[in-house]
């Protein structure tokens, strides 16, 4: 299949503006500024059917339309490059190998929505990415794609990189904005949504790196063309970072809706040592687990939601028969306990309680009642303030539901069956 998002990454010096421009880079920006009105751009993105790749899958065209309709000034365009979820490393490829694609996407988005200033909120642990982005931005300024009166038009846009300080919660858009304002990274009450009251309470568009990298091609080849790739109600190419017990872990670009099974067994080469597949977390660390008989599911937002889990960032984590499901769930919930901002009760206290129970089970002092308690904590956590707490319990609750026997095995035998004695 033709690579769209990863079309440049194999090229030498793909992060340099010359290389990017040689293969048609910044032509979309030129086209937008010379031939299209902001509304035309939004219309084109709406036609494409592009949905946000940050996790929530919100239609990008609609988000831009909301922002463009708000009359408050100035407006801000923020690229969410915080990529903090375990096993998610797809944005990194774009940041480091094709930074100009996302920058071009961002400038186009800013033009469409009327944003004057932009920030790339970059994961603190991406220092190389930071250098690359800063250099790329400098190159874009030099070529006149950023700054005042871009390409001689009335449109001006300034772009800066802002490094996070290592908090997963700062990937959540409102916490990101608080952090960008120099405050403690904690989510805000919604509504108002960032498109109306974001950075400095001004209209702010927040888009994921991968979302933005799609924009130049949509402009170049048209929304109609784009909408025909992959699943009809959730089209486009998608980056799938695959990790865990597969033979070829890595980032794969495939059309939305590619079956999970195909990704694991064809693209990622199947399970190491040809062991048996045990479980898959199909959409990042906070998605509900899928068992081997559920992996025919097409990888897109609606299909996974129907399967009781979610696409999230698209990060696929594969466990084989030698992995302990309790330990896997424990690891994940430990991450969320560590990353919970502590603002709301269910997440702050629920993650801690879950860790404590799972540790006990894993160490052999679990009780059968613990499983019911886990499920009820999970229910309470549904009422968390933000997406972190609302989803953090998923890996635990779903494994308790689908791998109950294995949990009970821990409880009954008083030890973890996977641990060598």
């Amino acid at each position, binding site marked *: 299949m033709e690579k769209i998002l990863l079309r440049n990454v194999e090229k030498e010096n793909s992060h340099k503006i010359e290389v990017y421009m040689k293969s048609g880079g910044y032509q979309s920006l030129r086209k937008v500024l010379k031939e299209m009105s902001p509304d035309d751009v939004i219309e084109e993105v709406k036609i494409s059917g592009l949905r946000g790749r940050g996790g929530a899958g919100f239609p990008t065209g609609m988000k831009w339309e909301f922002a463009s309709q708000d009359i408050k000034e100035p407006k801000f365009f923020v690229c969410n490059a915080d990529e903090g979820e375990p096993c998610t490393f797809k944005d990194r490829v774009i940041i480091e190998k094709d930074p100009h694609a996302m920058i071009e996407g961002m400038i186009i988005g800013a033009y469409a929505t009327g944003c004057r200033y932009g920030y790339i909120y970059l994961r603190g642990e991406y220092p190389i990415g930071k250098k690359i982005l800063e250099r790329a931005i400098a190159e874009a300024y030099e070529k006149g794609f950023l700054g005042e009166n871009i390409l001689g038009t009335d449109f001006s846009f300034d772009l800066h990189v802002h490094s996070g300080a290592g908090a997963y919660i700062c990937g959540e858009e409102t916490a990101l904005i608080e952090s960008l304002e120099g405050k403690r990274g904690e989510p805000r*009450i919604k509504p108002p949504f960032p498109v109306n009251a974001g950075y400095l309470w001004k209209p702010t568009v927040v888009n994921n790196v991968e979302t933005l990298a799609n924009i130049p091609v949509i402009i170049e080849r048209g929304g109609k063309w784009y909408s025909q790739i992959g699943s009809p109600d959730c089209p486009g190419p998608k980056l799938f970072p695959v990790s865990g017990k597969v033979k070829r872990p890595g980032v794969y670009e495939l059309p939305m809706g590619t079956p999970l099974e195909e990704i694991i067994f064809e693209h990622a080469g199947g399970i190491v040592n040809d062991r048996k597949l045990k479980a898959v977390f199909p959409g990042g660390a906070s998605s509900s687990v899928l068992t081997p008989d559920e992996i025919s599911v097409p990888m897109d937002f609606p299909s996974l939601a129907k399967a009781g889990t979610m696409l999230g960032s698209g990060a696929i984590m594969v466990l084989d028969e030698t992995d302990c499901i309790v330990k896997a769930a424990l690891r994940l919930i430990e991450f969320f*306990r560590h990353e919970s901002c502590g603002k709301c*009760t269910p997440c702050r206290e629920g993650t801690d309680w879950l860790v404590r129970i799972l540790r006990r089970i894993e160490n052999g002092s679990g009780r059968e009642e613990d499983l019911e308690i886990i499920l009820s*904590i999970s229910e309470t956590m549904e*009422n968390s303030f933000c997406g972190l707490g609302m989803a953090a319990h998923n890996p635990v609750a779903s494994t308790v539901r689908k791998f109950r026997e294995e949990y009970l095995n821990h409880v009954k035998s008083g030890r973890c069956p996977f641990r060598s004695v």
Partner: protein
Amino acid sequence: MESFKIIIDGKECEAYPGETVLEVAERNGIVIPVFCYHKELRPEGACRVCLVEVEGAPRLATACTLRAMPDMVVKTNTERVKKARAGVIELILNNHTLECPICDKAGECELQMVGFRYGPKKSRYREPRREKDIVIQGPLIEIDNDRCILCRRCIRMCGENMGNRVLGIFNRGYKAYISPFNGDFLEGGCEHCGSCIDVCPVGSLLDRAFKYKDRPWRMEKTWTTCTLCGSGCKMEVDTYHGKVKRVVGRIGINNGHNRGYLCVRGKWGWDIVYSDKRLKKPLLKKGEELKEISLEEALRILKEKIEGKEINLFLESSLTNEELSKLSAVFGNTNVTSDALTFSLAVEGIASITGERRTASFSSTEKSDVVFVIGDFIEEVNPVIATLLRLLVIQKGKRLIRVGSYPSKLDAVAFSSLIVSPEEVIDLLKHFIMGTIDLYYSSGDRKIDSAAKALRNKKVAFIIGGTTLFSPDIKEISQTVAYLADRMGNATITVIPPKANSIGVTKLFDLKPPEKLKGSVNVLVNTELERDFPGIELPKAEFTVVFTPFYTHDIAKADLVIPIETGVEKEGKVEGIERTLDLKRAVVPKYQLTEIISQLPYREGSREKRELKIKKKPGESILSGEKGEIYFTLLVNRTGWNSVSYYSGNVAKVAGRRELHLHPEDAKGRKIVTLKGEHGELPISVVENDSLIPGTAVLRVERVTRDLKGLVKFPFTSNFKCRIAEE
């Protein structure tokens, strides 16, 4: 505003745009449990205990953040809601200390109440309790983080409502805890207003002066008025067996104009009642010594000494109306001086335009669009009034314009702060007057023009207060403001009384400067000369009587000393910034001023009707600055106002410093300077303060002592001139 209907638990409720479901429910008597919500605070949505079910919404919603929408159908009591709420409370209780038997909050703890009513009936928690063991102690406040439920009321209260940002969260997730900046209240800039303690739903934020002292349910509660300044805050004094245990403001419950907000003096100054400097018996001078005598004897001597004599009456103005009217009946009301003198000048200034010696009540601000403050350091003199002004902006969305000569805490929320040299204040006000005459008038200064524009066709509440009341220009400033208000129409003027009954004193007495007193017996009531009349010598007299609750320096000059009571021991009324305020006796005193005075013979009234000259023109500054001269303002720290930190052991713990704030241009790198006045000099350490304008200086003191005598002279202790000695 157009109201609409929503349905909560089957009941049709009226709702207004912008209201939350919780607010509508509360107004309609439907109880929804809360932790992080507080009426006075911005909603946070953090605790998740106020969950409700909304028809058509898949998830439960938090009532405290959910805006009511037309035709919304809400249920607060379904099984689903009950379970979710109990789940949240369970999570809070799991690691809670539950040391209620030794917790000061027990009995009025919201976790106890909500937990009992809505919580799970049984604990399922089998893990060892997670202990944070982080206790942070300040001089008056303590945070016991193991009791904290992280509702963040304290953070919002301190940061947003008080504008102090002392408190914050350290760490993240389950390790999060509350602490002042750097773990230190004083370093964090805590003003010790006590508001954080007041809103803490549990026993985490504690009043250290009350810690382990008593139990909420057995104390007697007396609602009275704090008389330690002119804010006149309503407060609850809790006593047990006639002894004061603590004072609480009860923010959100208190129905006084202060809505429960207090300052350090009101919250912690109650222990002046038990000061070791309290006077226990009347004293009579015999030779060089003062001897204790009985009250009967004291009264007998007093009667004899004052008979037929003209009295020089020195009044401190936090006395009650009852006390004042008796004093005026016995000692006369024309040969009188008081620390309310400059306040009365302000009132005269206004009256010279309006024809009425009257100032509007503070609630006039509520009805205004713009609050126009002319005053410096209101946050020190009348801290709670400053808080209320701040809240008018952040809660009610009023515009605040401030004119003054020094920086103020209020500037942070002001639409416009116009800070000019003291002699330019009146000229500045005149630009606004010109703006009312000529719509196209321009002052030549964009800042002034934009402020003037913000006043146009608006209801304006003018507020005069703070140290501006002690400027030599005060009468002229008030007259100018009154002229401006008169021209604008639709405007009110409020002068903030510096002391609890400045208004009452001004109404009842014809005040004179002390030099004009011509009697032969001095009677000092509740005053301390150095504090209330700095730089003034007691007039020569045959006999001097001092009525005071404390051993003051004036006792040395007295022939007879009679003890009296302090604020919380009084029953009576004062004329407050918001109408007449009630004092209810929380503690029974041994000596009562009204009782003592009642036993003295009344005099014939001699007061003539004070005439009023109506001028109908703005004032003119009487200040004249020469190049290189500096204007000084004597600023008594908030803690030291009314000598509170001198008599209160609590407040002494957080007393401020004595230091001279100079603009770097004026400080010229000096760390210590000597101030030279007409009759004295004072070496003092310098703080460089670049938020001042050059040519102004603030002499901050905790207590006005003798050594200031040669520099400062009553009544104009602000914007006076003195020299900095060249080394």
